[in-house]
C-alpha cells in the first residue's frame, strides 16, 4: 500500500510537471501578448516592453518556467527596488490583471468550488444511488418506471437551463430561496448551506439522474450475478441479499465514476458557478484564460490536474479496500 501510494504520487508529480510545461508552451503559442492586453491603447512599444519586463515575460521560457517552479517550492521575490515583494512558498505568482497573489485567489475560490461539489456530490450520491438501487430492486414497477422517466428527463437537461429555471422560479419570481451566495462554512454553517442550496439542488438533481441510471443498471447487472443467487440459495433474507451482497458489489464501479466526477468537478464547475454567481475556481480560470492571465491559468490548470490525479489515486485505493481482488502494486 505504502509503495503503491509512493509510486502513484511520483507518477502524479511527473504528470503535473508535464501538464505545467504544456500549459506554459500553449500559453506562449498564443499570438497575443498579455502585456499588450494589459496596456491597451495607452501603451507604446516601450511601455509594452516595460510591462513585459515587469511581468518577467521577456525572459526565456526555460528561465520563466524555472522561476515558476522554484517559487512553488521555495517562494521567490518579485519586483525590484521599492517594489520588491516577498512571495512565500508556495508562490504561484501574482495575477497579471489585479496584482493579487494567486494563492490568495485560490484561497478564496477553492472553498467555493469545493463547497458546491461536496454538497452536490452528497446529494447526487445519496439520491441518485438510492433511487437507482431502489428502482433496480423494484424493476418493472410503477416506481421504477417513474424513476426512469424522471432520470431520463434529468439526464437530458443541462445545468445552464435547469439552473436558470430553478433560479427564476425559486429566487427571482417567488423568493422561496435566497439568491445563491457563498458564506464560509466556518462563519455560519446555516448561511453556507442556504446560500448553496440551489446549486446543490441543480447539480445534485442532474447528476442524480445520471447516477440513478448508472446505479440501476449496475444493480440489475449485479442482481443477475451468480453470487447473488448463491446468497439466496443460502437462505439469506432479501434485504441481506440486497445490501450485503448485491449493493456492495454494485457500488464498486460507481466509486470509480463518482471519484473521477468529483475530482473533475473540483477543478471548477464553470457553468454552475456562472449561473449562480459564485466566485469559484471555474469562473476564475475561465476569466483568466480570456485575460491571458498566465499565473492564474497555470495555477488553476495545475490545481484541476492535481484534483483529478489525486481522485484517481483515491479511487484506486478505495477500490483496493472494497475489492480484495484488486492488488495495489
Amino acid at each position: 500500500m505504502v509503495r503503491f501510494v509512493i509510486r502513484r504520487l511520483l507518477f502524479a508529480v511527473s504528470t503535473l510537471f508535464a501538464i505545467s510545461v504544456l500549459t506554459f508552451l500553449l500559453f506562449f503559442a498564443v499570438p497575443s501578448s498579455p502585456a499588450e492586453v494589459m496596456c491597451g491603447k495607452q501603451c507604446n512599444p516601450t511601455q509594452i516592453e516595460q510591462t513585459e519586463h515587469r511581468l518577467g515575460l521577456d525572459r526565456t521560457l526555460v528561465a520563466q518556467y524555472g522561476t515558476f517552479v522554484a517559487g512553488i517550492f521555495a517562494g521567490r521575490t518579485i519586483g525590484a527596488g521599492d517594489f520588491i515583494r516577498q512571495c512565500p512558498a508556495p508562490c504561484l505568482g501574482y495575477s497579471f490583471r489585479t496584482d493579487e497573489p494567486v494563492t490568495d485567489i485560490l484561497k478564496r475560490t477553492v472553498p467555493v468550488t469545493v463547497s458546491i461539489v461536496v454538497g452536490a456530490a452528497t446529494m447526487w450520491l445519496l439520491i441518485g444511488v438510492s433511487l437507482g438501487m431502489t428502482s433496480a430492486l423494484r424493476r418493472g414497477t410503477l416506481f421504477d418506471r417513474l424513476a426512469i422517466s424522471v432520470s431520463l428527463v434529468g439526464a437530458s437537461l443541462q445545468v445552464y437551463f435547469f439552473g436558470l429555471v430553478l433560479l427564476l422560479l425559486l429566487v427571482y419570481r417567488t423568493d422561496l430561496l435566497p439568491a445563491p451566495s457563498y458564506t464560509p462554512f466556518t462563519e455560519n454553517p446555516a448561511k453556507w448551506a442556504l446560500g448553496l442550496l440551489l446549486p446543490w439542488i441543480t447539480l445534485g438533481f442532474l447528476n442524480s439522474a445520471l447516477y440513478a441510471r448508472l446505479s440501476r443498471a449496475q444493480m440489475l447487472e449485479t442482481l443477475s450475478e451468480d453470487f447473488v443467487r448463491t446468497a439466496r440459495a443460502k437462505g439469506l433474507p432479501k434485504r441481506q441479499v440486497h445490501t450485503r451482497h448485491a449493493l456492495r458489489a454494485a457500488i464498486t464501479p460507481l466509486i470509480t465514476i463518482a471519484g473521477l466526477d468529483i475530482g473533475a468537478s473540483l477543478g471548477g464547475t464553470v457553468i454552475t458557478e456562472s449561473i449562480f454567481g459564485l466566485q469559484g475556481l471555474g469562473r476564475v480560470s475561465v476569466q483568466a484564460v480570456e485575460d491571458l492571465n498566465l499565473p492564474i491559468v497555470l495555477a488553476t490548470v495545475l490545481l484541476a490536474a492535481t484534483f483529478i490525479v489525486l481522485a484517481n489515486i483515491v479511487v484506486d485505493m478505495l477500490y483496493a479496500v472494497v475489492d480484495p481482488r484488486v492488488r495495489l502494486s
Partner: protein
Amino acid sequence: MSVPPAAPPDEPYLQVRDLTVQFPTEDGLVRAVDGVSFSVRRGQTLGIVGESGSGKSVTSLSILGLHNAARTRIGGEISVGGRNIVGMADEKIREMRGRDMAMIFQDSLSALHPYYRIGVQIAEAYRIHHPSSSKAEANRRAVEMLDRVGIPQPERRARSYPHEFSGGMRQRAMIAMSLVNDPALLIADEPTTALDVTVQAQILDLLADLQREFNSAIIMITHDLGVVAQIADEVLVMYAGRATETGSVEQVLRSAQHPYTWGLLASVPSLHGDAEIDLVPIKGNPPSLINLPTGCAFSPRCRYAGRNGNRSFVEAPQLRPAGQPGHLVACHLDADSRLKIYQEGIAHAGAAQ
C-alpha cells in the same frame, strides 16, 4: 401426464409431480419445464441429464424457489420433506433454503461473493439458520466444514478470498458451504463441469462420501453421462422441458431406449478411445421453448422420426414402461424397433460404458 416411479417403502424426501415452469415473455410463453415428475430418497442420487435448455437447471432452481417469482408461472407439486413448496410463501421457502435443501453451483468463482472471505461466507450460511449461535461458533463451524471437505489448513484458508483458491478447492468450499446446515437435499448443478478431469473425480468422490455421511438426497444436474454413471442411482433424461427417459443408471445407460439418450451416449467421449472419432454430437439444435414442434419435440433431430406414419409430428409421446420395472421412455418407436436399432447401431458405437 406421467407415471411416477414405483413408490419405495420409505417416502422419497423430494417428490416432484407434473412440474411445469413457464416464463411469459414479450415473444411468447416459454415452457421451460413441461410436466416433469421424479423423486429422490435420502441417501439416493438422481442424475438429471440434458443439453442446455432442456429445463434441468430451471427444474432445480424451482425446487429451491430461486426462480423470479414475479416472472414465472409454476405448476404441479414439489414436495420437500413432505411439504409442497409450490405456492408456499416465499419467506417459508427461504427458511428451508440452505437448511433443508442446498445447492452447489457450476462456476464456483462467480458463485462465491468476490469481496467476502470464504470462512465468512460459510459462517453466514450457518448463522442465518442458527440465529442463536455466536459469530465464533459459526466461524468454528465453517473451519470444521472446510476441514471436512478436505481443505488443508482450514483455519488459514477460511480467511482467504475465493479468488485465492484453486478451482477444485473453491468447489470444495462451495460444497462445505452448502452442507454447513446438514441439508437433507443437495442439488448439484454441474458441479464439476468447470474442473479438470482428475479434480472432477475427487469432487465426485467427496460428494459420494459426504452423502454416505449425511445421508442426503442428491440431485446431480449434468450434461455428462460419465458423471451420472459415476455417482447417480437413478437418471432422468430431459429434452425441451420434458422427461424423455428415466430409470436406474443401469437401465438408462446400459439399455437406453430413447434416440435422444442414444445421442447423448454417443457424444460422451470415451475414456479409452480417440475422442475425435468417438464424439458424435447430436445433429441440430434444441428447439425454441416458445415454439415447440408439434408432436415429439425431438422429432426434428431424430433420424427415426416418421417410422410410425406421422405420429411423431402430431402427437407428443408419453412416458411408458420400457421393459424393466422403473424404466420409462417417451418415444413413439415400438419396443422391438428400439431394441433392433440399439443393438445394430448404438451399442456398436459403444459410447457409454
